[in-house]
């Protein structure tokens, strides 16, 4: 087996798996999210009651997970487009994946305070 030609089990396959899993998760959230937003047509109280659950610490953690899934799917999606349309895309797919991962880590670190800050204040006081 020539080195470097094995696709299965390497960066290419695992990024494909992660793209699928995050995509399915985001789609299910989107379905729920349109339903909860539709409550603005019922009454302001109904909407505010449901949105209040989005502000609890546990759901804040789920929101952080949602941001993680969306950021990976968005960045890796741009990588997929580069692989398909850029002449050298396939050759640099591994380097592009590690760029995606690095960007994702930086953005996720930056999202900790804005997304989880209010939950931390609620749990530990301000």
């Amino acid at each position, binding site marked *: 087996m020539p080195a470097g030609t094995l696709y299965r089990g390497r960066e290419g396959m695992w990024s494909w798996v992660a793209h699928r899993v995050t*995509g*399915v998760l985001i*789609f299910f959230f*989107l379905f729920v999210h*349109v339903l909860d937003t539709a409550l603005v047509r019922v009454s302001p109280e109904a909407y505010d009651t449901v*949105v209040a659950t*989005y502000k609890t610490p546990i759901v804040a953690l789920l929101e952080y997970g949602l941001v993680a899934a969306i950021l990976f799917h968005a960045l890796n999606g*741009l990588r997929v*487009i580069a692989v398909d349309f850029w002449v050298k895309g396939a050759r640099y797919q591994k380097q592009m994946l590690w760029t995606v991962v690095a960007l994702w880590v930086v953005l996720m670190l930056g999202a900790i305070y*804005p997304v989880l800050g209010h939950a931390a204040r609620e749990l530990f006081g301000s």
Partner: protein
Amino acid sequence: MSTTESPASGIGPVEGASLYTPDNPAPLIEPPRARTKKTPKSTRGNFEMVAWLFMRLSGVVLVVLVLGHLLIQLVLDGGVSKIGFAFVAGRWASPFWQVWDLAMLWLAMLHGANGLRTVINDYAERTNTRLWLKGLLYTATVFTILLGTLVIFTFDPNIR
């Protein structure tokens, strides 16, 4: 090993001279997929190619729309804690954000539905299972797109 001589160019002795002469012409080989009057116009449309292209085009637009949405809803101005009916009413007072949310709804739902269609085609091996799962998927997608569109167009800030 040194006794076997092979030309450096890789052209064997046979290839140097032509096998065919005007009296002995090469046989004419018909193109394997020549279109005749009997050939159907198209055996299948290019739906899958259009779907493939749509995933890439909508994906680029969604990166901007969704990341902008996350920035506004979860990061800026107190994050999720400022969201409520009044906040929604303030945003949808502007046609710009109405169009933004409408485009995001349609593109994300169609992008996600096509993604799930691919996943169902890949993993559901029985024809009936595929049929039912896709029926459920398309029903949920049409329902969600219509509901979301209705909500954006009929939003009333003075509902109460």
